[in-house]
């Protein structure tokens, strides 16, 4: 271990591993660490060799070899008595009088988490005339539903919804609260987490439990999807997380499930609230297909961005009962509309079968499709990122391969139908 001129053993940073999170900068008791070019740097003369930077570094970017145990970092404000908080709660968003699909996906995930914690799944519902949604919540897996049914909750206003949700959180005290990462969910999550002074992690793609500390392990992509980070909220409750639609699996609905429904009142905020003057629905195109719900997607990449071949891609999609989607360059070129873009700045999809035609597979595209069941990649480049992760890689010119593929699949479908009619 290196020593400074005072003979003190000091900590050392491995610049290649540093993620620039600045945790060590905040933790260092003597201000010996500064950020330089996005990387933490230790002033060897100022370092007192206490090793606190080593303890907080999430990236193992600090070398500190004095024998000591890596302690759990007890940071934060006065911790709350975490034992008083029980249950995994899901905020159930209402869309056109029904529960949003993402909310049911989260109820499914909450069941799994609650199973590990040996606790209950709680549904939180805010709105007007929401009784049927409460019953649906139980069918999807909630044990207890808490709702606030008030005319003021008809449309979303941050202060009103914030008051209502914080009231539920204070009354029910769940240890975990999950919300869909929709425009409403993200907004409301931040308002409530701020009011409760608790931790909130956005856009998680993985949720699990650390049983020892009853902690929610919240994993999310960061740095544009190039790095995954697992985040903890140790000393504050509830542990809050938003999750994007279609990341978790939609559970089966079971009408025979039983549960309790409680209705609560709340104090509406009294100051002059914003007034919604008008709602302008986005016009639905005549040929609009929702690429997030198609079981099969034929995805057009930059290398197949050619108007002449679009009918061929449609034919393949129709044959399989699917839809045509694309990567970002294809939208930029104007071949297909933004509604059909897959990827970080487009939509997250998880079809049964994903067929990428000349899609190279930039990381921003991959984060939007990697939970597809089966991936087929058609590309001339054997080393394209999508080809390397594909379950089936077809190497060659798509203009020659796709027509033959269509013929081959047609023949198979006919034989399927033949079999079916014999049955």
């Amino acid at each position: 271990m290196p020593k400074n001129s005072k003979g003190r053993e000091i900590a050392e940073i491995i610049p290649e591993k540093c993620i620039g999170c600045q945790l060590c900068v905040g933790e260092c008791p003597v201000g010996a660490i500064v950020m330089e070019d996005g990387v933490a740097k230790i002033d060897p003369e100022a370092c007192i060799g206490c090793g606190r930077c080593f303890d907080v570094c999430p990236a193992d970017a600090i070398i500190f070899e004095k024998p000591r145990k890596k302690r759990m970092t007890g940071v934060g404000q006065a911790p709350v008595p975490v034992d008083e908080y029980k249950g995994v709660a899901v905020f159930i968003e209402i869309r056109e009088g029904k529960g949003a699909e993402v909310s049911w996906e989260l109820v499914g995930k909450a069941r799994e988490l609650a199973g590990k914690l040996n606790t209950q799944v709680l549904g939180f519902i805010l709105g007007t005339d929401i009784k049927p949604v409460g019953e649906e919540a139980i069918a999807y897996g909630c044990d207890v539903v808490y709702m606030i049914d008030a005319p003021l909750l008809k449309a979303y206003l941050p202060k009103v919804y914030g008051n209502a949700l914080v009231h539920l959180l204070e009354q029910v005290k769940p240890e975990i609260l999950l919300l869909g990462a929709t425009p409403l969910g993200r907004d409301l999550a931040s308002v409530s987490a701020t009011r409760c002074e608790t931790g909130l992690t956005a856009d998680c793609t993985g949720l699990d439990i650390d049983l020892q500390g009853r902690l929610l392990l919240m994993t999310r992509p960061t740095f544009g999807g190039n790095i995954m980070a697992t985040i903890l909220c140790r000393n504050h409750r509830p542990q809050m997380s938003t999750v994007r639609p279609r990341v978790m699996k939609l559970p089966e609905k079971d009408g025979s499930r039983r549960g309790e429904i409680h209705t609560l009142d709340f104090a509406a905020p009294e100051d002059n609230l914003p007034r919604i003057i008008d709602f302008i629905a986005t016009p639905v195109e005549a040929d609009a297909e929702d690429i997030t719900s198609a079981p099969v997607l034929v995805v057009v990449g930059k290398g197949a961005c050619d108007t002449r071949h679009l009918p061929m891609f449609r034919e393949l999609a129709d044959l399989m009962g699917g839809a045509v989607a694309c990567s970002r360059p294809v939208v930029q070129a104007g071949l297909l509309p933004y509604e059909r873009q897959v990827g970080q700045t487009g939509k997250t999809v998880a079809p049964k079968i994903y067929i990428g035609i000349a899609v190279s597979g930039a990381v921003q595209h991959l984060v939007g499709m990697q939970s597809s069941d089966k991936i087929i990649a058609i590309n001339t480049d054997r080393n394209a990122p999508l080809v390397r992760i594909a379950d089936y890689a077809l190497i060659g010119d798509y203009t020659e391969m796709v027509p033959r593929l269509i013929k081959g699949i047609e023949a198979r479908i006919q034989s399927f139908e033949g079999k079916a009619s014999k049955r």
Partner: protein
Amino acid sequence: MHIVCCVKQVPDTTQVKIDPETNTLIRSGVESICNPYDLVAAEVAVQLTERYGGKVTVISMGPPQAESALRECLALGAKEAILLSDRAFAGADTLATSYTLSQTISRIAAVNPVHLVICGKQAIDGDTAQTGPGIATRLGYSQFTYVSEVVSVDVENNTIKVKREIEGGSELIEGTLPALLTVELGLGIPRYASLPELARALRQDIEVWGAGEIGALPERLGLRGSPTSVHRIFAPPVREGGRVFDSTENTERAIEDFVEVFFEKESPLLEHLLSQDKG
């Protein structure tokens, strides 16, 4: 009208990569830029002062180098800039960040009343979109996220009318000032600064405030004030590649092989799909 803009310096994330073998960052050539959403926020703020009069103050929390993000905004036409730089701010999550920024805005407003706070919808390094609503909640301001158009501001009657993008469409909504907006990228195109503006931006003094200047409670700042902490980082899971069918020799043959294997291995999936299709 006095508008405060909150901006963040971020790494140009499209360039940050992780080496899956060594699990280390490849950061060669990664530049720091002003978050693109925040540049739009600054542009919108300047346009509003051009329409209604007044001035724009930009603030940014970060290391001393974050000063360059503030200068980008000064070049767009912001009049004042304050850099929030203090070791006590380091390691902040969104809760501690919104506390620091709201304390700062309170201090600014005590001297020169604030009508509007404008933030970018989200920062490209974290994509959380949490800081804006957090600031509005702490300050008790009217909150309008995902704003795609500022229809009108009426300082005399203390009202603002905006269009917001929400699930399934957009809403036209009116509320009272002071208000906080978070803006979509499409709301404005940051202008090219003129040479005199650029020169002014480079020469202007930027005040640096620390925990003392904003009257903050130390236990609510930075690492200490952050309930969340990073537990570990890793490269995204990589899906294993499967079978490769090469058609460079014989296209016909490669496709036949593929269809054969595909329909054999995936027959339950395909039969289900194709029968559903018929139904």
